């Protein structure tokens, strides 16, 4: 394919500008001296300082990170196991399972959230009236909801890796004396790792970004950062939220840049080795 000319490059720049303009605004105003989100009143770090003493925000942040981390890790393990199981299924049953697996992905978030909340409320009420307990929607239902919508992402990123897997590798490991589980751990797992890690990342990102499903399933006690923001947006979002989001954003940015640098270094290394290989021949 031809390389891009000036106009296509310009187009790309403009689209990226569109994507980043609000983020830029948000970051800039996290350093604003006043609460205003449209009038610049001077540079200040006050929101970053206040942030750490704001119990509600810190609590929401903790919940968000905890739920996202727990859900994505659980989803990662469960999803990998499920993917292996699904891969072993017969063609037809695999098709059925996969289309059910797709429901949370293609269904509207609000329907997923609403339907889960119906289930949770029903289950909690039934449980409470039978056992006289006082359970309610909360962290656990939130976690279950997150796991439920995270698993499909993990499965979808692990399955292709399974398909790429050389079927003989597992046998080769057994052939060399590894028992079933050892062979899995030493050979299959490392091979699936890129898919699993990718799935973990997507799941974590989706959990962090989710608002709608959390909103319907978190109950009254806990709230995620997104819910906190939604509640605040009714009146005025505290620049503290801008500050915390800027921090999150910056750390992910740095992380990604580091990964990127490592990746390109590896690429270059691999390329050089291949080149050496070619000249040797």
């Amino acid at each position, binding site marked *: *394919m*031809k390389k*891009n000319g000036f106009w*296509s*490059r310009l*187009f*790309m720049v403009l*689209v990226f500008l*569109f*994507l980043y303009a*609000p*983020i830029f*605004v*948000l970051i800039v*105003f996290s350093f604003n001296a006043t609460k205003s*989100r*449209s009038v610049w009143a001077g540079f200040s770090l006050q929101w970053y300082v206040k942030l750490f003493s704001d119990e509600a925000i810190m609590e929401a942040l903790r919940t968000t990170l905890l739920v996202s981390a727990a859900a994505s890790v659980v989803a990662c393990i*469960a*999803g990998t*196991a*499920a993917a*292996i*199981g699904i891969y*072993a299924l017969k063609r037809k049953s695999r098709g059925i399972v996969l289309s*059910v697996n797709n*429901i949370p992905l*293609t*269904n*509207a*978030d*609000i*329907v997923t959230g*609403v*339907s889960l909340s*119906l*289930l949770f409320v029903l289950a909690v009420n039934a449980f409470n009236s039978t056992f006289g307990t006082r359970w309610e929607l909360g962290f656990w239902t939130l976690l279950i*909801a997150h796991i*439920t919508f995270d*698993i499909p992402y993990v499965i979808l990123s692990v399955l292709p890796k399974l398909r790429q897997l050389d079927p003989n590798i597992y046998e080769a490991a057994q052939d060399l004396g590894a028992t079933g589980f050892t062979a*899995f751990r030493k050979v*299959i797992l490392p091979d699936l790792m890129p898919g699993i890690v990718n799935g973990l990342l997507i799941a974590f*990102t989706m959990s962090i*970004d989710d*608002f*709608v499903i959390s909103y*319907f399933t978190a109950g009254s006690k806990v709230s995620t950062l997104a819910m906190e*923001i*939604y509640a605040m*947006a009714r009146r005025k*979002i505290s620049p503290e*939220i*801008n500050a915390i*989001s800027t921090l*999150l*954003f910056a750390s*992910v940015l740095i992380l*990604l840049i580091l990964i*990127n640098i490592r*990746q390109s270094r590896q*690429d270059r290394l691999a390329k050089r080795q291949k080149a050496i290989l070619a000249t040797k021949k």
Partner: protein
Amino acid sequence: MKNKWLSVPYIVWMAIFVVAPLILVLIYAFTSRSGGFTVENFTTMAQYVTVFGRSFFLALIATLVCILLGYPLAYYLAREGAGMRRMATMLIMLPMWMNFLLRTYSWMSILENTGLLNTLFQKIGLFALINSVFGTNIEYFHMINTQGAIVLGMVYNFLPFMVLPIYTVIDKIDYRVIEAAQDLGANTRQVFRKVIFPLSLPGVLSGITMVFVPAVSTFAIPRLLGGGMVTMLGDLIEAQFMGSAYNPYLGSAISLVMMVVVLICMAVMNRFGEGEEGAVVL
């Protein structure tokens, strides 16, 4: 490595947390407030026809805009060098790490009558210019709290979901197939029309799904950027479950209808998409 049983826990999980809730929605949709069977939830829905129409219309527009912006972006991206490509895909994913409500909220600051954009126009003398030319007396462009703002919010939020699948598909196209087309006499435009575009259709279709569905059901975006002036399906459902009009039965019915309509749309589109593939051939 044939461990079929590993899929069992997940199938059970899905049965409980994916299938059962949807069945509950189905049951609720046919239940009256007093608990009996009813179809009233569906008959009362007649008054929401405009809401349905508006939601689908706005989502459709947003999806179209997403295609118009997203397809070229994905296409141009795929033509960049490896380093640039990796960075660009990263840049597309990255905004997701800043909560979408917050980013949408940020649009309020930009679009308001006294917002950044209008201030900018003011500063560069755009209004003065317009006023002197047309003899009007404009002080700002009215952008916030309109349907346009809602569409903008949707496009903004869901554009990455259009770009990524298209990009992935285009990126996977074997460059030799493109060379083969050139070899057979296709010029650049024909190569695009006859080979690249049809081969990228699966990406476009999944992009459409990933944009249209959330767009049609969103409630946060109209609330933030629509100023409560425009009611959409998401608002309606949310209101039945969390808001003033508490009525989960009606809410379920609306959700159900929305789901079914979306499913039909998708099915038609997929069929159309396949037909499209054939059509492109001829």
